């Protein structure tokens, strides 16, 4: 098995070594990546999307459809985990695992700061590194950390039972709503209006997407962890 694996690795390595011959050099400003689509985004991105963070502009506006499918992917992961047969349920889980007081203290101390940092990433994302996904990942991490400390039932209380399915579906649903709004305003699916008098609408649409990605992503990450643990 090991020898066979090594042979495979050698073949793949040789193929890759031949394959990278002729690729554009790294850091070269004349590489195709910089002078075709990328050049337009840098040149006109701010004017066309109203976002100074061009990564956000690509994610939400130019390639927003990718992002819509991406939030569907993470929703799929949740549906997948929920569809599998479960060993136990939240109800018959032990209340809380014994946790060292140090861990308890550190998590409790850090939790508000983590939440604050996530919110900052979310709302400063248009002018600095950050955005919905980064904030969502932090919210997810926060849910997981709190879940470890509070036990399964305590963690289940963090998100109200009745709101949970809506929050889990928040990102795909918001994307569909924004896409439909864009359809109505500009005539194209997921279109962001460019007219100066609609700039406020454009910003509201982008913000709605960011918030939905952060909240939906965070809740799904937390739910994934809790479902798997059960």
């Amino acid at each position: 098995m090991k020898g066979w694996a090594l042979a495979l690795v050698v073949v793949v390595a040789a193929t890759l070594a031949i394959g990278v011959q002729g690729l554009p050099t790294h850091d070269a400003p004349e590489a195709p990546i910089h002078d075709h689509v990328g050049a337009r985004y840098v040149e006109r991105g701010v004017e066309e999307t109203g976002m100074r963070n061009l990564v956000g502009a690509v994610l939400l506006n130019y390639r927003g459809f990718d992002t819509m499918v991406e939030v569907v992917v993470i929703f799929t992961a949740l549906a997948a985990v929920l569809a599998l047969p479960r060993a136990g349920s939240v109800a018959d889980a032990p209340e809380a695992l014994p946790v060292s007081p140090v861990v308890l203290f550190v998590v409790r101390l850090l939790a508000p700061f983590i939440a604050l940092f996530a919110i900052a990433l979310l709302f400063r994302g248009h002018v600095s590194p950050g955005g919905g996904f980064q904030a969502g990942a932090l919210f997810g991490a926060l849910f997981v950390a709190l879940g470890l400390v509070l036990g399964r039932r305590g963690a289940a209380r963090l998100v109200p039972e009745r709101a949970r399915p809506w929050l889990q579906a928040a990102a795909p649903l918001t994307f569909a709503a924004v896409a439909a709004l864009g359809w109505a305003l500009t005539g194209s699916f997921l279109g962001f209006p460019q007219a100066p008098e609609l700039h406020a609408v454009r910003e509201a649409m982008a913000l709605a997407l960011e918030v939905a990605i952060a909240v939906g992503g965070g809740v799904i990450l937390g739910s994934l962890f809790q479902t798997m643990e059960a």
Partner: protein
Amino acid sequence: MAPFGVDLDYVAVAALFCIGLYMLVAKSNLLKKLLGLNVMETSVFAFIVTSGMVEGGDPPLLVAGAQPPFASPIPQAMVLTGIVVVVSVTAVALSLIVQIYAHYGTLEVDELKERP
């Protein structure tokens, strides 16, 4: 960086890819296989995200004080999407592994193959 005409970034990417592949194929433990898969995926992300860099470039944040040239924003957006995809695949794989362990009591492929 390209000493001796070799682009070190590409070497690193190819090495990561091969390490991940070896783990995936040669290891018997399911968790290690999953880690190998993640290493392979990381190598492709590294390839994509480094391809968008530019000599002396700034991050693609067009705020006051930022100077061209800028790194290309597309690879960064692609990698962000890719990471989410990989996280999702990993989550599903982990929950399958939990099921397998609960049922068979082992994570070794060699032992799993012998059971009905």
